[in-house]
């Protein structure tokens, strides 16, 4: 049994950068990655904005030295890039030296290729390779192959927008229970017509830059991204004399039990997830220094999450902000993206600004952090809430 769950490596690719350093640079300089969609031909091009990654699929192919007969979806490309950076960052040279598992989250999977070739599959044999790449587990398998993880726990979690937070949680529990020594956890999701059209019909896509926690918020921007963290047990950290970036201190998951796609008015699920995470961490609300909120900038989420935060923290709400204005909502990857941002916040003692905010919400008087703020941070709470009522909270700390 391992008491602590150490984070010893991180990797990320998002609309604001192709690695951890680039993402951090954009975060502290307030550079957002939201633009008109370029790589997907959609009728909605002028109605929506997205967080898109600059590299094309063929550029990824070259970076990863893949032959042209590969059947990688964009989700898999993103996932491999981020996972490889995490392994390198953790200084891992022999991945199988310890019992190492992989828990990867996705909701889009290989949908991008399916929608591109759907009607060609019957006639065009060359496109049929992408059928195998469609399912949610395929990108996970490809990441495992690329990392050389053999004969160990390799699994995919799909619980909508809380998926990656649940990957972190499962990884932490696998280490605590002693089942694995090391777990690579995170998630990947690319943009697709599937999600663009789906979220559009739900009428929760903004036609301009998303504005989390603003009274006049118009909805979310979809984004694509992947991020992975290397979690290691106390024993591995000791044996290898590892530098620990931060610890996974607490985690909680609850169901909102309210609606398939909407959060309850008082944020019951969010409230329970935060409470449970505090309990696992053995923290009181006063121990939290910064909340990286889910803050999707939909009318429903920000109100529900805000109310839940007030229920947990009362009069003493810590500094909070949503980084969705930088990256867009990256769906199943969001929990991992924001885990990397939370660890960076701890390492650098900064609270990121909640961009694009103009008008105070009328339902409550708490205001997100609007400017970059430097202050000593010991703990960061990160929220991720998904369709199906799946609500998760993870707490990161500097000290074990």
């Amino acid at each position: 049994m391992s008491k602590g769950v150490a984070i010893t490596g991180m990797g990320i690719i998002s609309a604001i950068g192709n690695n951890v350093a680039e993402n951090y640079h954009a975060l502290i300089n307030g550079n957002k990655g939201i633009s008109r969609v370029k790589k997907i031909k959609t009728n909605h091009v002028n109605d929506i904005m997205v967080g898109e990654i600059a590299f094309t699929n063929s550029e990824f192919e070259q970076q990863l030295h893949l032959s042209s007969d590969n059947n990688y979806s964009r989700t898999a490309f993103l996932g491999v890039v981020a996972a490889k950076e995490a392994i390198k960052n953790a200084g891992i040279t022999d991945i199988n030296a310890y019992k190492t598992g992989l828990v990867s989250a996705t909701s889009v999977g290989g949908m991008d290729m399916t929608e591109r070739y759907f009607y060609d599959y019957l006639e065009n044999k060359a496109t049929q390779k992408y059928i195998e790449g469609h399912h949610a587990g395929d990108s996970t398998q490809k990441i495992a192959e690329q990392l050389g993880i053999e004969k160990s726990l390799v699994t995919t979690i799909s619980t909508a927008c809380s998926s990656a937070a649940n990957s972190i949680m499962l990884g932490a529990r696998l280490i605590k229970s002693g089942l694995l020594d090391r777990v690579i956890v995170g998630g990947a999701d690319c943009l697709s017509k599937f999600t663009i059209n789906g979220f559009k019909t739900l009428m929760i896509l903004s036609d301009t830059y998303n504005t989390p926690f603003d009274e006049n918020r118009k909805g979310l921007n979809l984004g694509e991204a992947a991020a992975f963290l290397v979690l290691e047990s106390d024993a591995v950290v000791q044996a290898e004399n590892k530098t620990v970036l931060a610890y996974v201190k607490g985690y909680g998951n609850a169901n909102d039990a309210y609606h398939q796609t909407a959060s309850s008015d008082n944020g019951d699920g969010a409230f329970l997830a935060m409470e449970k995470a505090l309990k696992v961490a053995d923290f009181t609300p006063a121990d939290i220094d910064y909340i990286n909120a889910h803050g999707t900038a939909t009318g429903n989420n920000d109100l529900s999450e805000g109310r839940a935060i007030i229920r947990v923290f009362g009069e003493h709400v810590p500094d909070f902000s949503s980084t969705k204005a930088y990256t867009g909502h990256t769906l199943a990857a969001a929990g991992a993206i924001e885990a990397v941002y939370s660890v960076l916040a701890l390492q650098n003692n900064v609270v990121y600004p909640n961009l694009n905010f103009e008008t105070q919400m009328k339902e409550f008087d708490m205001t997100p952090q609007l400017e970059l703020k430097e202050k000593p941070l010991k703990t960061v709470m990160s929220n991720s809430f998904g369709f199906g009522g799946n609500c998760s909270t993870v707490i990161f700390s500097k000290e074990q």
Partner: protein
Amino acid sequence: MNTDFYIKSYCRIKDNTVSLNDSVLFNDASKSFIDFIKSAYKNQNTKYPKFFKMDNLSKLAFLAADVLLKNENLKLENDNNIAIVFSNRASSLDTDRKHQESIQNKESYYPSPAVFVYTLPNICIGEISIKYKLYSENSFFIFDNFNASHLLTYSNSLLSSNKAHEVLCGWVEFDGENNYEAFLYLVSKTGTIKHTEQNIITLYNT
């Protein structure tokens, strides 16, 4: 880790048959899945109109859970801390295809919000949670095959760390009319069947 847990009850919907603890409750071999599940719903006196707007995977998972949980006589006014841990192979593929067709059809382009909301496997967990007021931990895993070992470890961990009092877990797969199967079981601190990998596999295969 304490592993002194039991399989309290189990439910299966497969081959146009609904069974609870291996007693057949309902069978109608003559029907397509859509008609069969509707007849089963009526036969089981489920009385939950939201059932009719669910997608196939949710209908399947919901009905199996409902048959099993109804038998538990839960008091809904109490907080029932029953975690839900489901798994399958095809995720929400059946509904994904419907949404996909609706956005690729140039003549009648209409992505429906009512379809899109079901394009995630864990929505069926939400449906069960809404009905039974379960504010509990829940996860949906994707595996190639029924993975008794993972479900066992995960539910034991939830129970022994007191994150849940009971765990509703199992396999809910819907990948087309002729390829569906629900096998759910309730893991508890009381019961007669020991919660072991072998017992889970035996129940799943019988």
